[in-house]
């Protein structure tokens, strides 16, 4: 008995497209990740045009900040709300009864979130260019994009942890309660230097601050050496993934044992 299985690539492609459709059709994602950074730009970016922050043009600095906000948000929402939804609506039960290969679902979610995050950064960059004349050198911009996408791994892990721990009804509130203060306190919306002292002291311990440091460094602003930030980010990823693993095991024994 050696029937073949369905080929992997079309399965992954279809799953990714399905996730992307979901992201595009739910206003939650589009407003928070695509539109809000543009609003930030209008209210916080434009007034600071031709200033300098962190030793670079304020436009470039804020492009990095808001880009980090956008991608971090996509990860937190897509994995936090997405996974909680999948569990709450029992999509996972039906998927498990099909020959969908394990891991395809998560991989597709990752690819879709990356694509959506990339789109958000492109839209923001174009908007900043058109309205504020912000132009990054192509190489710098590419480094920024790669760091924003790869550096978001701990936020993906944090999203997953929330997705596995929180019920479908509570998850939008929890994601925002965790995300918004963290984004604000890391200087992703209003530059850190303009925030209260105590927040400036807390910020270096936040994953989103370390993540944003990578982005600020990419556009040439003063930041810690990227190696230090990477170490922090890896540490956060490990901690969050440990929580994910635990929550996943609990879920497994409750639902599938």
């Amino acid at each position, binding site marked *: *008995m*050696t*029937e*073949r*299985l*369905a*080929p992997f690539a*079309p*399965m992954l*492609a*279809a*799953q990714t497209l*399905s996730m992307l*459709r*979901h992201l595009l*059709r*739910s206003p939650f994602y589009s407003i928070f990740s695509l539109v809000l950074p543009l609003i930030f730009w209008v209210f916080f970016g434009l007034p600071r045009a031709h200033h300098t922050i962190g030793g670079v043009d304020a436009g470039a600095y804020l492009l990095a900040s808001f880009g980090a906000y956008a991608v971090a948000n996509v990860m937190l929402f897509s994995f936090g709300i997405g996974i909680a*939804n*999948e569990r709450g*609506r*029992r*999509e996972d*039960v*039906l998927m*498990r*009864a*099909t*020959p*969908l*290969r394990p891991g395809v679902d998560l991989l597709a979610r990752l690819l879709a979130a990356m694509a959506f995050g990339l789109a958000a950064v492109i839209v923001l960059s174009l908007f900043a260019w058109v309205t504020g004349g912000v132009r990054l050198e192509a190489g710098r911009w590419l480094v920024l994009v790669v760091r924003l996408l790869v550096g978001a791994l701990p936020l993906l892990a944090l999203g997953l942890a929330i997705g596995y721990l929180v019920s479908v009804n509570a998850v939008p509130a929890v994601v925002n309660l965790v995300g918004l203060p963290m984004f604000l306190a890391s200087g992703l919306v209003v530059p850190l230097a303009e925030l209260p002292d105590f927040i400036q002291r807390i910020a270096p311990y936040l994953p989103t601050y370390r993540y944003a440091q990578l982005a600020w460094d990419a556009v040439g602003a003063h930041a810690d050496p990227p190696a230090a930030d990477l170490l922090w980010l890896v540490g956060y990823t490990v901690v969050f993934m440990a929580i994910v693993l635990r929550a996943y095991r609990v879920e497994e024994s409750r639902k*599938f*044992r």
Partner: protein
Amino acid sequence: MTPVVALDHVTKRYGRVVALHDLSISVDAGEAVALLGPNGAGKTTAISLMLGLRRPSSGTVRLFGRPPTDLHARTRCGVMLQEAGVPELQTVREIVELFATYYPHRLPTRSVLRMAGLEEQAGTRQDRLSGGQLQRLFFALAMIGDPEVLFLDEPTVGMDVEGRRAFIATIRERLRAGTTVMLTTHYLEEADQLADRVVVIDHGVLVADGSPAEIKSRVAGKRVTLRFARGVDPALFAHSPVTGLHVEGPVATMLSARPADVLRHVLAARQDVVDVDVGGADLEDAFVHLTARPRADD
């Protein structure tokens, strides 16, 4: 020949609750089996074990001779589950096409939508479907991989009478085409129409396994229906040889191996008997008799 599904001395506990006790069922290719039982009998647990969604506490489960979690085995199955969800914010066609990529042999989307009676809803988003339409979407998803066996867990829940009739006709067509069917239901009519074999479980224990005719013949008695002019107190039958007593207003139905004794007693006690009907037991009666308690709902 390897059985399609084989449960071998399977026991399943949830904590201290025993959901299935030492259950052995083997289903061969081409069989249409109805797993029957009152709510909480363990039907859904049995299906979950067959599909590898849950693990047995002891005993073994095989699907096409393989562990039920094996993707090769799952490739040959179509599944309709209770309380399962499909991806949000997508149309019927998008979801069907997505699931099609999970299977090596897929049926054309159009023919599956026609089979499920969803051609007009192809462009409708899943969240705008009625309960019955959603059930038919699950059926379409079960069929898209051209399955050798269909697992249907309470498939007609949420369907109206017309929808249920159409659905049963569709399943019968699949049966003629040689598809093996494993169905759970508490609609005995459905089991009678679809199954050539009925497995009755109650409290996780197998109580009967045979053809619908055999199950019916297990009930030696007759079905007695009495209509009174006024309401009737169940206590009236307390000392009569009846089982499965059901009283609703002025009508009492029951099973009895000695209907004449029952009638003698009732006619002596009540002067207002309007109508009497004594007939052979059907599958539903057999079910009530076998599980010794009335059907939980419907």
